[in-house]
């Protein structure tokens, strides 16, 4: 039975952009329809049009029928009786009103639609919070949104969406802002919620892995039009449209056979030993007192050889970027040692440090924020050259060369950053980093802000540059599939520590630390059959507060292995902080690793 039928829908934004052009689609009762497409394909516009929540000035034509009732052209008052009752939506940003408690906001959702008492609505709110897996629901209902993590807020959004047992839930990128581990749990909650109320779900995402495990049917969109629609197996196995095939090819995948390669015997260009970076947390207005310490980086060590790529992975807040920034500072760390190209950063004088700066360059996550919006591309790329005193006569030629190296055309040199696409902007960032012919490139989530195809192209570029210029990369990322493609070695970070380090192939095939295992399990596989057949170990709880020190293993509260251990073994986890040994190629900081690692 069809619950939602969209026919020839057209959406135009004020300013003339035609976001949706003639889309027709149906959603059956209890069905999950996945909508994929690159950024700007009109996915969000479609969802907002169905909800009747497009911004002012937008025009809608065509028809949206829910249970055979037309929604297009209805008044706000009429639509508000449907919204949140029979048709609910979960947004990408879990945006809750900051000044009301989450319990009140859920209760409000219940009360606007049915005249139950305040107390009954409160009770229902607690019940819903419990359903979406918030521990201590009755107590947590009195918390304000800022006291919840991103994943918990998204679960509250789901709780509100199912509060009145709607027949359709629209979910627009519900997990795009979350870590993989959290994403996996939120998707599970969404699935459970769907089962509980029997709603149909329209899941919008650009992540084909998420769709594979979740959707029954898939609709591929591009430029406001439907490219193709079909059952999920068919779309993944034999897509009819070339565009879909290309989209599927561009996904970085984990897996495939890669033979274990021995580490090349090349000189170490970057060595980090027991590096510590603690941030004091201050409080008070007139008199500032130290209230605690965030152990952002708490004694990490690794080495990177010439031409090698080491990836630092982990959930948000685990200290990846801080570690990178500590290395980039090229000065004495709070504790530990950083040795760059054979020089200890603690002993550098200003002149030597400046010389070394040329060899270590950085590329940031957000190309839009890291490029000066008022400078042309040519000026941005030339900037490091001028600061390091390269004669003006040489600069122009060098800029052209650099742009060519990163696959930009000469005409791009005259543009401003906002006149480029996301992928092109990131290329400018890379060109700027390459200007001084560095030997080490520090990359902080260089492709996280890009969508599928742009991501694949930038990764290919980075790989090519590494070959041609003999660069060494330290690559920070949270996307394990991207890391699998580009890195030789991986270091997994958790709460300021490296819990496991090793060659990509070994580590992905046989993770030794329970945390690594959980991270890998959380990554959805872009293949419907494999994804559904998989057994996964998910993490319990969120990352603990980094300010409270933990005795013993700091992963214990979330470790899936710890509760299974016999009491005697478990005591070790409670009492001793497992530390990775030193100076080997594969290390794990766990008392009871999942696979034994041969002591070399």
């Amino acid at each position, binding site marked *: 039975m069809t619950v939602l039928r969209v026919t020839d829908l057209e959406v135009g934004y004020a300013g003339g952009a035609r976001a949706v052009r003639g889309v027709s689609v149906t959603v059956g009762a209890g069905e999950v329809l996945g909508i994929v497409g690159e950024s700007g394909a009109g996915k969000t516009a479609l969802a907002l049009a169905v*909800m009747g*929540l497009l*911004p002012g000035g937008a025009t809608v034509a065509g028809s949206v029928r829910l249970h055979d009732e037309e929604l297009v052209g209805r008044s*706000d*008052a009429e639509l*508000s*009786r*449907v*919204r*949140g*009752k029979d048709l*609910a*939506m979960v*947004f990408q*940003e879990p*945006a*809750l*009103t*900051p*000044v*009301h*408690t989450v319990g009140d*906001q859920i209760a*409000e*959702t219940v009360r*606007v*639609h049915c005249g139950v008492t305040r107390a009954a609505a409160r009770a229902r709110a607690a019940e819903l919070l419990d359903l979406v897996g918030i521990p201590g629901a009755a107590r947590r209902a009195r918390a*304000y949104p*800022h*006291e919840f993590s991103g994943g918990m807020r998204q679960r509250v*959004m789901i709780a*509100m969406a199912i*509060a*009145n047992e709607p027949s359709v839930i629209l979910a627009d990128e519900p997990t795009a802002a979350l870590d993989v581990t959290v994403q996996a749990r939120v998707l599970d909650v969404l699935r459970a919620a769907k089962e509980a109320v029997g709603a149909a779900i329209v899941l919008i995402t650009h992540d084909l892995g998420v769709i594979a495990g979740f959707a029954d049917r898939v609709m591929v969109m591009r430029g406001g039009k439907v490219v193709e629609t079909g059952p999920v197996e068919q779309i993944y196995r034999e897509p009819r449209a070339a565009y879909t095939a290309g989209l599927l090819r561009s996904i970085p995948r984990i897996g495939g056979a890669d033979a274990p390669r021995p580490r090349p015997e090349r000189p170490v260009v970057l060595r980090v030993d027991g590096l510590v970076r603690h941030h004091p947390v201050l*409080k*008070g*207005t*007139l*008199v500032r007192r130290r*209230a605690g310490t965030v152990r952002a980086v708490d004694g990490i060590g690794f080495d990177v050889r010439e031409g090698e790529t080491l990836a630092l992975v982990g959930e948000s807040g685990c200290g990846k970027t801080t570690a990178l920034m500590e290395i980039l500072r090229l000065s004495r760390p709070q504790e530990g040692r950083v040795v760059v190209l054979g020089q200890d950063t603690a002993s550098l004088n200003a002149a030597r440090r400046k010389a070394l700066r040329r060899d270590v360059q950085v590329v940031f996550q957000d190309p839009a924020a890291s490029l000066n919006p008022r400078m042309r591309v040519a000026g941005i790329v030339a900037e490091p050259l001028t600061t390091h005193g390269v004669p003006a006569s040489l600069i122009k030629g060098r800029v052209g060369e650099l742009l060519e190296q990163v696959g930009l055309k000469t005409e791009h040199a005259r543009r401003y950053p906002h006149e480029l696409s996301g992928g092109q902007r990131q290329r400018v960032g890379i060109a700027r980093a390459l200007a001084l012919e560095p030997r080490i490139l520090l990359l902080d989530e260089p492709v996280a802000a890009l969508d599928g195809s742009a991501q694949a192209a930038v990764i290919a570029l980075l790989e090519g540059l590494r070959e041609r210029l003999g660069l060494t990369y330290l690559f920070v990322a949270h996307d394990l599939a991207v890391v699998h493609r580009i890195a030789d070695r991986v270091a997994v970070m958790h709460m300021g520590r490296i819990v496991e380090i090793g060659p990509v192939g070994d580590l992905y095939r046989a993770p030794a630390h329970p945390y690594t295992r959980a991270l890998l399990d959380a990554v959805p596989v872009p293949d419907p059959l494999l994804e559904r057949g998989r057994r996964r170990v998910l993490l319990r709880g969120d990352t603990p507060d980094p300010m409270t020190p933990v005795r013993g293993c700091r992963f214990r509260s979330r470790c899936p292995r710890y509760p299974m251990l016999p009491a005697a073994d478990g005591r070790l986890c409670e009492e001793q902080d497992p530390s990775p040994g030193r100076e080997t190629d594969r290390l794990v900081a766990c008392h009871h690793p999942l696979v034994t690692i041969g002591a070399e």
Partner: protein
Amino acid sequence: MAGFLVRRLVGRGVLVVLAGSLAYLLAAGVLDPRAEFEGRAPRPPEAVVEARLSALNLSDRVPLASRYRIWARGVLHGDFGRTQEGEPVNAELWRRLGVSLRLSVPGSVIGSVLGVLLGAYAAVRRGQGADRVITAGSYLLLAVPVFVLAALLQMAAATANDAMGVRVFAWVGESTPGEPGAFRGLVDQARHLVLPTATIALAQFALYCRYQRGLMLDVLHADFVRTARARGLRRRRALLRHGLRTALIPMITYFSYASGLLVLSGVFTEKIFGRHGLGEWLVDSITRGDVNAVAAIECAAACAVLPAGLVSDVLSGLLDPRLRAGAAA
């Protein structure tokens, strides 16, 4: 929260002491009371002037540091010294403070409440007729100087009085001399308050209206308002319960401090309507070079910021749970 408030209060207390001292030093250093005495006709003999100045702790022949010490000791005992005429500053200060407060408190409360409401309404109706009218009105009010506004109001009131044939509005001074009976007296005082209060309220209204409209525009498209609508709230309800409530928070701080300072900034209104308040006194005292009076008024203004800050802290804490958490931690 109580501990947090006490800490903030202590911090502000230190600031008030600093501000008060600075005000005295500046006034004593810059103003020239000697000139005032010497300018009197007939010109008093030099020795008399000096004796008079010394008695009032105003003599510029005494080092500034020792004058300050004497003044500060007095203030610590709750005594702001004497005016040039030899009257105690304290009595005058209290009297005028009352006059100013009676004028500024209702004016600013009415003005800010109206401003917030109409500003928020204009934002919701952005670009439509109501928004245009409100925006044009508030810009006009901002552009018109207070004394022009006051004069216009007086003209309007006079026309109204004539039209009705009774004197409904009165605006000179605080009350009509010789109005009999306690009740009639109160009514008469209220009657005299209408125009000056309206002047202050209108000027405040324009500021608050502009500010609130801007704040409200920011939350109009906020994701949480959209979320609220997606849950089934009508646009108006979502904007009121979720949008306005959030957009009010930055306003509170502004409101508290602005009304703390309003005690002084009512000077034009006081002058025009013949009300002898603090603002008027400050201007007169500066022209006369009356150091002690100027310092006392400045101290009073600095102290007014204390309760204003306290009100701001309490209100923001009540409205914004994020602040509360920060305070408790």
